[in-house]
């Protein structure tokens, strides 16, 4: 119980930087993580995003100390903690299914880490009350966890993980078991907590919307490697590979080859011009749905755009926007998203349309 816990007893807890160097994890022949390097900045909200089996939870468990890496080191504040057991790391952690102690009241759950630190009784009471107030559950301290709703239970878990003022908070898909509305509400609350506390948050999720909403930076994992690391804007607007483009946000991807300033579609043989900034190598052309515009077949499109002929398969009304599903003459499916007032007349199921994009909005990927 050395440095990690001592710092938490000071009033001003600030986030700790975490440095992950060449961390690998193998179970027999099965490689779960392969030489991952990641520097998490002090006080940032970093999300580990990936599909199941990508290694994101394993990486979090290595940071938490529940899993020992096969190779590599984990450092906090420059101190090597790779072999430090979890109870000496002083990190808060929130689990997917809350992991509240069913045999204790809500207040006793929140008091648990303070009792381990041998905090004085009066101070425990005061800090438990304060923290429950912070997550808006001040009136439920006497209840058992089983008497609370899922959202309330997750708030208790959150309160319990932050009451001892850790410098790092780890969250393993904490909102996965909640319904959509509650999830979105808690996403904003967790962001607010992050801003108020100023500590380092490491958040694991497979939900790209959640990652985009909450994070300062996102590390996208695939097959035990970090595919891309960047801000939500970078991941969405500048994906560095086809996987990244497909995982974050919806996408239309043409497969083909680059020839000079053009991209030749393998399927249709059609040639599309490329923008000035476009990569000169790669086999995929990405156009995001909001960059794909639609005009009825009899309306001419401007010269600065590239277009394909398509048939509208379905037109879905989503309130503020419309999702139009298209099929090109070559048989490829495309998705376009338009603002409702800007959807042109004549875009109905079965209609022939031009689908077009500005050459600057398309980018070439691997």
């Amino acid at each position, binding site marked *: *119980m050395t440095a990690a*816990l001592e710092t938490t007893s000071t009033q001003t807890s600030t986030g700790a930087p975490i440095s992950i160097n060449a961390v690998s994890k193998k179970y027999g022949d099965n490689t779960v993580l392969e030489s991952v390097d990641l520097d998490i900045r002090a006080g940032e909200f970093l999300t580990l995003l990936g599909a199941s089996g990508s290694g994101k939870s394993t990486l979090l468990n290595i940071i*938490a*100390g*529940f899993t020992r890496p096969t190779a590599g080191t984990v450092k906090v504040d420059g101190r090597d903690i790779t072999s430090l*057991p*979890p*109870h000496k*790391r*002083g*990190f*808060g*952690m929130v*689990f997917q*299914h809350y*992991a*509240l*102690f*069913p*045999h204790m009241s809500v207040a006793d759950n929140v008091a*648990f*880490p303070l009792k*381990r*630190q041998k905090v004085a009784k009066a101070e425990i009471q005061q800090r438990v009350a304060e923290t429950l107030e912070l997550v808006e559950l001040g009136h439920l301290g*006497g*209840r*058992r966890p*089983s*008497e*609370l*709703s*899922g*959202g*309330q239970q997750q*708030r208790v*878990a959150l309160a*319990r*993980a932050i009451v*001892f003022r850790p410098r790092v908070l*780890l969250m393993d898909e904490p909102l996965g078991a909640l319904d959509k509305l*509650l999830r979105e*509400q808690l996403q904003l609350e967790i962001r607010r907590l992050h801003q108020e506390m100023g500590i380092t948050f490491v958040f694991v999720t497979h939900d790209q919307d959640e990652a985009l909403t909450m994070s300062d930076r996102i590390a996208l994992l695939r097959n035990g490697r970090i595919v891309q690391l960047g801000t939500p804007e970078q991941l969405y607007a500048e994906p560095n590979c086809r996987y990244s483009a497909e995982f974050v946000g919806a996408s239309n991807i043409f497969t083909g080859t680059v020839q000079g300033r053009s991209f030749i579609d393998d399927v249709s043989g059609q040639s599309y011009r490329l923008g000035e900034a476009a990569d000169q190598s790669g086999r995929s052309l990405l156009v995001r749905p909001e960059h794909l515009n639609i005009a009825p077949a009899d309306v001419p499109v401007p010269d600065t755009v590239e277009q394909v002929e398509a048939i509208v398969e379905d037109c879905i009304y989503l309130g503020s926007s419309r999702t139009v599903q298209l099929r090109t003459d070559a048989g490829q499916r495309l998705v376009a998203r338009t603002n409702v007032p800007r959807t042109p007349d004549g875009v109905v199921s079965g209609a022939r349309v031009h689908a077009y994009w500005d050459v600057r909005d398309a980018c070439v990927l691997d």
Partner: protein
Amino acid sequence: MTKILTRAGLAILAALIGVYLILPVLIVVPMSFSDSSFLSFPPGQMSLRWFHNILDDPIWIDSALASLKVALASSICAVVLGVLAALALVRGHIPFRNTITAILLAPLIVPYVIIGLAAYIAFLQLGLTQTTLGFVLVHTCLAVPYVVINVVAGLVSVDRRLEMAAMSLGAGPVTTFFKVTLPLILPSVLAGGLFAFFISWDEVVTAIFLSGPDLTTLPVQMWSGIRVQIDPTVAALSTLVLLVIFGSFIVLGLTRLIRQLARRRVTGPATNTGA
């Protein structure tokens, strides 16, 4: 209509099986109150003379105390060992898990006669026959499987993430066990302990090998008693033993009921106010 008939049929069947299981045991109760000098059913005149007989003869009291001592000590040992074994089997990363499980559960399968004989031969040389320690060692060995089975079942149903959460909140492995794991598996531990107690309390086979003039447990005393004399003293004793067993189950049931009622009063009815 057929549903009701099926239900009624099932209820009757269940009742019949219950009677079949309990009736042979209960038959000793009226016999123990008989005035007759022989074990007889149905009993004629009612009397308490055989119960007086037990109290007058120190042999019964001594063997009952010996049995109680052995049963308490061996059930405590079995609980400690069984819980540790269950923790290792469920939570530990140990090689040859299935082999170890099989060895731990072996006393369930190996005939008691063989265990008794083996223990007798070994203990003769060690001077452990007719000693409380000898009885406790053998009975612990017989009772451990019951504790292991109960506690493994309890542990499997405890979410490992609760223990991970406790550790992330600063609790070391020992604190985590006593503050989180043990309270959650307590019902299985108690059930295992109760099994262990009664395994020892009514064990005859190995006890016959280990008993002698210096130390004899109650079941062995009863067994030799019924071979020598066939008056209803043994029936009266059986009634008392049954009373102990049923009594402890009733007490256990009552404490659970009281605890449930108390909890309901403290927290009030469960209400969900939403998030």
